[in-house]
């Protein structure tokens, strides 16, 4: 009997901060750079007698994300308390949703080699974040805690174990981030800890005698906070599971060992055992009596559904179909909703989608990168860019002059038409004037002229370049080329 095939089976729990101004249960501002313990109040400090009040914006954002993931919004969701003792959790319980989350049963499509793959979403729910505990430096026998983050709204999104490789995990993570940012649900800034990952990994070991699939134990890796670390941790675990299984094919199974929790050491790129099945916490979940259950108004849910923008994956495919863009362009342009909106407006107005794509991916991207701003920080409207593109299309200016005009638009805020007019940048198509320039270039460059006459195609480029220079960049390069051809080979 041959060794069974081992198929990685991976699910992902993702936590992201919801993009609310205030915390989940109180009016404290969500801030990432504030002085420690300066964004706190009796409620988020869990003082005696306080009560939570649900942040409606957080619920709205969560429902928005759940709907975008194709989830069902049940008629009733409830809040539960999850108990564990830790100094960064002042109440020693976390308000979460246990068995009746606000979104269930959706999916997210990701691009994989050879097409699109659908990753199932088990559930989407809201919970509160904890504070940050820091142990004293220099071996001091104490710790300090910053409770600014305590009570920050978190969205937890739990996938089905539908992923089979680290690549798919990365594709899913990035697609989820893109979706959340697209919808305005979360900012998902990794450096700020706004998005965190907990993958669970096991290998499917063919099929057991009962016909059901068998698995290696499930390893859940806690608290990974970058795409890179989640990808590497998953790859590490797949290799580790293979080794363990090969050493003990009978013993290293899910039935025997169950689920274990592991940590990740980023600089060594290894996981380590935190808790085995026997040491699993009993969180003593029970319904949160201080909050009323969430009973969504159907009309409100429908309104949110109707307000959802076209989602990135659908839009990417539409850009390919409708504008004939290459896969690559479509992917880049739809990665950010504002970029996609900008592109689409410009493309429609200038009636040259491919040219608009080049402009956005080259000139616009360059400016955004240089200035480190988002679309909102670009002083050029898509309408203004479309006008510029039309000038190039019409041959009024050439492409290089176009870039020059673009930069001038940035600096002055003037329209392309105005800049071209004021600075006399319109290219020369006047045959008589261009004939004179061409004749002078041929006279001044006898070598290249002879080369081109002799059949060297490359020499023509040099000649055209000289003619452009002589015209101050205003010559219409197409006409100049025609004149050279006629004069030297005619």
């Amino acid at each position, binding site marked *: 009997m041959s060794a069974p095939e081992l198929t990685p089976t991976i699910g992902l729990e993702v936590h992201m901060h919801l993009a609310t101004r205030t915390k989940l249960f109180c009016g404290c501002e969500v801030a990432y750079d504030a002085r420690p313990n300066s964004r706190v109040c009796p409620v988020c400090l869990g003082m*005696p*007698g306080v009560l939570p009040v649900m942040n409606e914006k957080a619920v709205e954002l969560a429902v928005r994300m759940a709907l975008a993931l194709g989830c069902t919004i049940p008629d009733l969701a409830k809040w539960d308390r999850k108990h564990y003792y830790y100094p960064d959790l002042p109440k020693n319980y976390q308000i979460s949703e246990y068995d009746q989350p606000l979104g269930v049963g959706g999916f997210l499509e990701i691009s994989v080699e050879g097409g699109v793959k659908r990753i199932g979403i088990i559930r989407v729910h809201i919970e509160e974040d904890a504070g940050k505990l820091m142990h004293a430096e220099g071996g001091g026998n104490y710790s300090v805690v910053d409770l600014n983050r305590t009570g920050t709204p978190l969205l937890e999104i739990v996938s089905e174990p539908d992923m089979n490789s680290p690549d798919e995990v990365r594709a899913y993570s990035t697609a989820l981030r893109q979706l959340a940012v697209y919808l305005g649900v979360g900012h998902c800034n990794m450096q700020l800890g706004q998005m965190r990952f907990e993958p669970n990994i096991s290998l499917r070991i063919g099929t057991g005698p009962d016909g059901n699939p068998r698995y290696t134990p499930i390893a859940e890796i806690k608290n990974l906070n970058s795409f890179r670390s989640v990808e590497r941790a998953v790859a590490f675990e797949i290799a580790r599971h293979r080794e363990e299984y090969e050493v003990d094919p009978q013993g290293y199974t899910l039935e025997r060992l169950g689920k274990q929790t592991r940590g990740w050491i980023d600089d060594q790129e290894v996981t380590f055992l935190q808790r085995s099945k026997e040491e699993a916490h009993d969180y003593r979940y029970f319904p949160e009596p201080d909050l009323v259950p969430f009973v969504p108004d159907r009309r409100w849910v429908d309104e949110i559904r109707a307000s959802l923008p076209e989602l990135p994956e659908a839009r990417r495919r539409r850009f390919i179909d409708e504008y004939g863009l290459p896969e690559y362009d479509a992917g880049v342009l739809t990665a950010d909703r504002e970029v996609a909106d900008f592109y689409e407006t410009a493309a429609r107005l200038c009636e040259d989608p491919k040219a608009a794509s080049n402009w956005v991916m080259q000139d616009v991207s360059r400016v955004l990168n240089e200035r480190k701003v988002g679309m909102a920080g670009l002083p050029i409207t898509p309408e203004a860019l479309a006008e510029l593109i039309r000038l190039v299309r019409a041959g009024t200016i050439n492409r290089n002059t176009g870039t020059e005009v673009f930069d001038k638009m940035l600096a002055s805020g003037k329209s392309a038409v105005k800049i071209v007019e004021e600075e006399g940048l319109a290219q020369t198509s006047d045959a008589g004037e261009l004939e004179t320039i061409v004749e002078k270039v041929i006279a001044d460059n006898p070598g290249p002229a002879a080369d081109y006459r002799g059949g060297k195609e490359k020499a023509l480029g040099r000649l055209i370049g000289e003619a452009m220079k002589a015209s101050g960049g205003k010559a219409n390069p197409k006409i100049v080329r025609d004149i050279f051809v006629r004069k030297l080979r005619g």
Partner: protein
Amino acid sequence: MNASDLTAIQMREAMEKGDLSAAEATEACLAAIDRTDAKVRAFLSTDAAAARRRAQEIDRSLKAGETPGLLAGVPVAVKDNMCTADGQPTTCASRILEGWKAPYNAHVVERLLAEGAVIVGKTNLDEFAMGSSTENSGFEATRNPWDLNRVPGGSSGGSAAAVAARMVPIALGSDTGGSIRQPAALCGVVGLKPTYGRVSRYGLVAFASSLDQIGPFGRTVADAALVLQAIAGHDPRDSTSVAEPVPDYLARLEEPLEPLRIGVPKEFFGEGLDTQVERVVREALGVYERLGAELVELSLPHATDYAIAAYYIVATSEASSNLARYDGVHYGYRSSDHADMIDMYMRTRAEGFGDEVKRRIMLGTYALSAGYYDAYYKKALKVRRLIREDYETAFREVDVLMGPTSPTPAFRLGERTSDPLAMYLSDVYTVSCNLAAIAGISIPAGFTKAGLPVGLQILGNVFTEERLLRIARMYERETDWAARVPPVCEGRG
């Protein structure tokens, strides 16, 4: 007549007439506290200087012609599980919060202050409101003003005793399973537990969140109505408070309710009921009959035995969670001697909590544990539903239900401290009201031969406080129990 003998409404009337100032009322109550509280020990803390300052402020504003609040110049006591940001500690009578000063006012405290009340002190309770005798206080046992060897009931025993002993006319208590009504009965005063959601719990240190409700103590029905008027209403900071309009509780207080059908649940007259208590309560029912009410015998099959069992699972489960925060990390008591973090948690809680609190935390932790949740907590919720249905059925037939508030009059200090189950049975007639989230009131109904007060409990459907108070007033007008003065107040100068 001493000003401290006046009811809140009488004080307000005297102030309106110019016969009494807030300062005089406050001074009289502070003097009564000085005289009496060394024996009764109703207060955990008082702040005489702050009360005097506050009374003078009220007098100034009254003199300036400002519209007086409902409680302008009236001295009030507040159970020490409600947060006050006035500099007095909020301890819940627990060592674990000894000396803790709340940085904010409870909603009810804000309401009292907005209506001009003078808060003179914080009253004793069973630690975290867990008990029926106020003996579980981490600091001292409060005595029953009618017999200093007996308990005042609990857990709001301090507030009940303070009102009964005429140290203040009115006080706030909290009722999770009878903690207002039972001490009211044992101390011979009026105590009202409003419908769950009628009064905001914001700032009430939680014992069992789905059962806790704040309510008033007074020596008369009208005073209880007055205080309820001041504290009832929606508060956006408590998601479980209800946006139901607040009626005028005093406007029709003197109007009897006619016709009146009174349900008398046979389960409230079962085994364990003291014969003298039964006699007093039957006589009170006779008064209603003479007033034209119809008595209807009925049954609440789940409201006593099952209620006690369900209550001690629901309440302890929620308590085990609510009290998890007292760990010595962020505020309150921290054990000075510990090896590491876990040891700090364990020692802090072992040293900071009293036995009854620990017992309930353990019971609740057990009930919520994996493998037991369905058998205990979930089943208790089912029983809770059945109890609510019992009441819904009853209220389709009758206007209110009546019976004894407590199966016995005040018991001796120490009598039940070694027998938690006997103590738990003190609440046998009161817990179902909290489980069903309905309203209940205990009013003085007479005395035993030994001179101990007996309470009549009247239960009404949700948000029927206005009718409950009117029905209570019908009886009160026919009797004069409120005029009796407990022995501890006698012989004063």
